């Protein structure tokens, strides 16, 4: 590492100085921001955000709740699934400012290591993922599915989970994981 001090990259141009100045002026973007209050995982957050901010970007970039993922930004993959008042929603299709007063639940509010939701535990036990990128969205859908009118067959679960794409293709294990939780809940109810 002898050469470390002598190997600085090309000099930073005047643009950098310009941007410092811009910073001092207080970013104009913040000037256009609007106040928004969100209730996420039982906590109230008072924010000032760009009115164009989606609920997904708001969760990720402002609240640093990065368990909700962006896979398409178009409502086509399900990676951003959250619960709004208990129903599953694609948060990339929601404008954050329109969900004030609603109860928003993200994966972080479902369970954390050491205190996982039965669906989360079942996903680990059944290896219902590979890369894990679609997983939080799958779990949000699966948790919501538990209280949706879904028949007992695998085929119905597959249909109800088809809004969440898993490019790794862990579908068979996802169904197994969900069914294992449904069956043990049914057993508990019956017992």
């Amino acid at each position, binding site marked *: 590492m002898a050469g*470390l001090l002598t190997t600085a990259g090309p000099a930073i141009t005047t643009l950098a100085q310009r941007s410092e100045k811009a910073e001092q002026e207080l*970013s104009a*973007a*913040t000037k256009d921001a609007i106040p928004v209050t969100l209730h996420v995982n039982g906590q109230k957050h008072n924010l000032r955000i760009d009115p164009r*901010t989606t609920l997904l970007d708001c969760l990720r970039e402002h609240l640093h709740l990065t368990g909700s993922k962006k*896979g398409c930004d178009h409502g086509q993959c399900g990676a951003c699934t959250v619960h709004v008042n208990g129903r599953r929603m694609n948060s990339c299709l929601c404008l954050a400012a329109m969900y004030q007063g609603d109860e928003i639940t993200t*994966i972080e509010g479902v*369970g*954390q290591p050491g205190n996982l939701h039965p669906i989360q535990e079942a996903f*680990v036990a059944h290896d219902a993922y590979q890369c894990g990128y679609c997983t939080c969205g799958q779990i949000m859908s699966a948790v919501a599915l538990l209280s949706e009118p879904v028949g007992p067959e695998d085929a119905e679960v597959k249909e109800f989970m088809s809004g969440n794409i898993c490019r790794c293709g862990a579908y068979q294990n996802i169904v197994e994981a969900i069914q294992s939780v449904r069956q043990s809940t049914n057993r508990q109810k019956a017992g």
Partner: protein
Amino acid sequence: MPTITETATTSPIGRQTPRIDGPFKVSGTAMYASDFNFTGLLFAVPVEATIANGKLQKLDASEAEKMPGVRAIFHRANIGKIFRSVLQPPNSGIADERRPPLADDVIRYYGQYVAIAVADTFEAAKAAADAVRATYTKDKPNVNLDLQPESEPEAVETTHGRLKRLQSERGDPDKAFASAQVKVDQTYVTPAETHNPIELQGTIAMWDGQMLTIYEESQAVFNLRSVLAQMFGLPKENVRVITKFVGSGFGSKLWPWTHCALACAAARQLGKPVKLVLSRRMMFQSVGHRPRTQQRVRLGATNEGKLVSLMQDYLNDLDILGGYHENCGESTSYFYSVPNLRVHWGRTRRNIASPTPMRGPGAVPGLFATESAMNELADQLKIDPVRLRELNEPKIDEGKGIPFSSRHYLECLQRGGERFGWANRNAEVGSMKRDGSILGWGMSGAAWIAGRFPAQASVELRDDGSARVACGTQDIGTGTYTILAQLVSDKTGVPLNKIEVVLGDTSLPPGPISGGSLVTGSIVPAVFDAADNAITSLLTVATTEPGSPFGNRTPDDLAFEAGRVFAKADGLAKGVSVSDLLRRTNMRLVTGSGKSEGTLDEKKPKVSMHSYCCHFVEVTWQPATARLHVNRVVTVIDGGRIINPLAGRNQIEGAVVMGVGMALLEHTIYDPQNGAPINSNLADYLMAVNADAPLMEVHFLDYPDTDVNPLGARGIGEIGLAGVAAAITAATYHATGVRVRELPIRIEDLLTSSILA
């Protein structure tokens, strides 16, 4: 969830092991590149060319620059110097797209970046990027689907160096084909496919005046470092790449793409951390794809079904500047016994972005062609396709003239057939029915390379009874975190829940790229070596350091087993645990480094190493609604020793699901008007969803291949995809009588079927 009760004596190798990183993945606490956040973070959005061939005439950023929150609009004139990188043999500095971003004003593919907007928020950056006005002089793009070979010399430059286009030849294939009793001569086409990992690619770049630090979801952190060091004129020690979790890649994240250099350059110009995450549309335009292939396959055989000639002439399309070669002949020269053979290839340049390896590159489209031809030959000969394969099983690798390390392909066929119920097949087209649907049965085989990349690792044993293993490889969803822990646990007796695994960082010992299904095979010897060296160091501590109960012994008198050091003369029971020994000697840890050589660059290999598999597929065809569904798939894998069968089965199932997509759904379509991939979103580019997934049954033969490494473990990330599409088209023919030779199978193809329910 089964709780893992570990005892120090059971090895976790070969045991169904829930992933050690699982609790992070299911709770949103696993940190992928774009999840990181830093003070002062700025957001970048690139501006994409809206033509595929022509020149950037004028770029007007004046409006965009004035927008609220915008820090800069960078383009060729103000981005600063970005150098060209070059391949550094044997295996570093690899990139499919070499032209540095913004290097000139020529547009060669749709979506090529012409500028980049940086702002305080993502919303502001996106609005600014949209407000940049670009004017072009346009030429008609060439995205023609009919591939004709360029006139290239017989040896050409590729991404990986110079290659001969005559890939393999033996005997006199033309003569043998001309006089063969039975012949197949067909052309097979596979379309451009886009990897589409669910994680969007992106970069967070930070530049402090000396050190460039990158968070990026890379399948090859060390290669990315070597390319960036070249592009920014830095010693590689001044570039650090960090990749903790990767939202899969399937090849698209193997080699660096231009957005990464743009983010780095923007961070350098502004002196702030910059986050650039691609849109899904950009994922279709500028991070690689599997190229279109067109393959003529000629098979000549005797009336009894013995192959006498095999010829494969294949083409792939590629970008204007690059050197990508889709190696469709990867398994052709050794898979079957045939005395006369020729494999030859060519390429065709188009106004498209660079292709790049996609899961099972070459072999997956290649085996679609050759296995489809084998199935057609079996039908012509009226013999069972399984029987045809048995008749042509080679004794050695006839391409290289060397023995196989471990090949159990025939056993795959036999097991698969039994599990599937193949003996009940009625070969007549449209003859098998169930519940008002026609059943179609088909099968196919496949092979995929095995071997090792060079790898290094380090293992620490610590005074609290825990261990740490570090290796600069990546876990792209294949379970590498868990396998590293299993290997260390096997060697040291430390339970899995006490092993810290660190990977995905260029500050660690260099590890293998996550490509070619070679990670597992490569890391086994390096990690074992590191663990052995840590244990040797421990025994030295035991005999030399004050406080040790073994002060009067030599290392040779001692042994290590199940996490305990003991004198051989006294036996395990009288030994002390690692933590005890380290505490008594007042040491926090002992450490060992390990290393293993690669096999892929061997000039004269002694054995031919591959994995093998077969798929048996059932489709249902409902003529009234023209609905084709893949019902069930039985897959048998000869993949060496399987270290974690839980994750292993999942890998294969996932590959089969991708194969269903390849056969029935996936197809990137380029608009002939403007050269754009027009179905560049996840609603128009169809991939298999949960309801498309068949019932899958996976079997592993589990024959250790000790030529690969001492455990006999080969990789299995890609083999499961190879052959699936050929088995599905065979099953489709069996159900409908329609032979589809161009993927994906479309409803239009099947409407010609005359089979009724």
